[in-house]
């Protein structure tokens, strides 16, 4: 009979993902890449917003897109139609992207130095919250056709976000959605949260979003730490 023994571990369960995310982050920092993790529930208008954003950026600065979906390459096809380089990750049964998948996608996509990399996560407000991808900022998209209590129902996602885009505001006249209540709920979960109101369809608020992108990109470039040698 062998003796049972006790091993004290104190191991972070998400430690492996954290290591992959850190490697991605180092890569972004070295190349002055602004990586954005775009999260939302399905149907928030994330892909449409992204296509419109890419059209507005045009040739102003380099961009690249990683698309995460359980199935199909439809979203990556829509993105490529704007001229932006895009790669599709199909998570299959998975409900979120993780640091390893993104690292693998980077090997294939190879975003240019100083580019803005948009990582469109799987439409899901629960699971992607727990998985760091190494992004510089997390952007949550909340559309006005959803409830204003979403930030309270899915607090982990809003707590980990840096910016919230309240999308589809062109529909506000037809809805009972209370924008101020939604923003107040989001700030209850995360007092430091920044909020922009946009409509990918009408273009309202899109210049402010572009300004935010330019400023965030400038910070990523300024903080760039090129690899020695």
């Amino acid at each position, binding site marked *: 009979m*062998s*003796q*049972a*023994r*006790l*091993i*004290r*571990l*104190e*191991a*972070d*369960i*998400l*430690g*492996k*993902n954290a290591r992959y995310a850190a490697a991605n982050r180092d890569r972004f920092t070295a190349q002055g890449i602004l990586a954005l993790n775009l999260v939302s529930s399905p149907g928030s208008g994330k892909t449409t917003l992204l296509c419109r954003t890419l059209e507005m950026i045009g040739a102003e600065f380099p961009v690249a897109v990683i698309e995460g979906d359980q199935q199909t390459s439809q979203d990556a096809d829509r993105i490529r139609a704007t001229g932006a380089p895009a790669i599709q990750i199909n998570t299959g049964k*998975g*409900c*979120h992207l*993780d640091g390893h998948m993104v690292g693998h996608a980077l090997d294939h996509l190879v975003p240019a130095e100083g580019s803005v990399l948009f990582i469109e996560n799987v439409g*899901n407000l*629960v*699971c992607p*919250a*727990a*998985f760091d991808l190494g992004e510089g900022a997390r952007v949550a998209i909340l559309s006005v056709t959803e409830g204003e209590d979403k*930030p*309270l129902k899915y*607090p*982990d996602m809003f*707590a980990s976000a840096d910016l919230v885009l309240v999308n589809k505001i062109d529909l506000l006249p037809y809805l009972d959605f209370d924008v101020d209540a939604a923003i107040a*709920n989001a*700030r*209850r*979960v995360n*007092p430091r949260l920044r909020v922009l109101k946009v409509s990918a369809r009408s273009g309202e608020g899109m210049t402010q979003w572009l300004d935010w992108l330019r400023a965030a990109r400038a910070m990523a470039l300024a903080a760039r730490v090129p690899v020695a040698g």
Partner: protein
Amino acid sequence: MHEMAICESIRQIMEDQAREAGFARVERVRLAIGALSGVEIAALQFGFDVVMRGSVAQDAKLEIEEVPGSAWCMPCARTVEIAARYDACPHCGSYQLQVTGGEDMTIRELEVV
């Protein structure tokens, strides 16, 4: 929903440990799960047995220690306990809270043979 992925990470860590520390089987595993870690403990327990099948931790006993959420209340200037991220300070009612604990998920210890 991502509890299965969490279970797979736990399995991976234990398989790695089995090679490093040289053991054949895990009899008991003790986790510490923060109240604000976004994990449903019932779902984790449900997924555990399924994911551990065929691993060094097949039939292992799962123990979960729940770590309460804590936050620094700015108006009170002290640490308070919270059950959810959107909770107000239980003393002054303010939402100016900075979460300081209960966000982590760790494997505390393994009993192995």
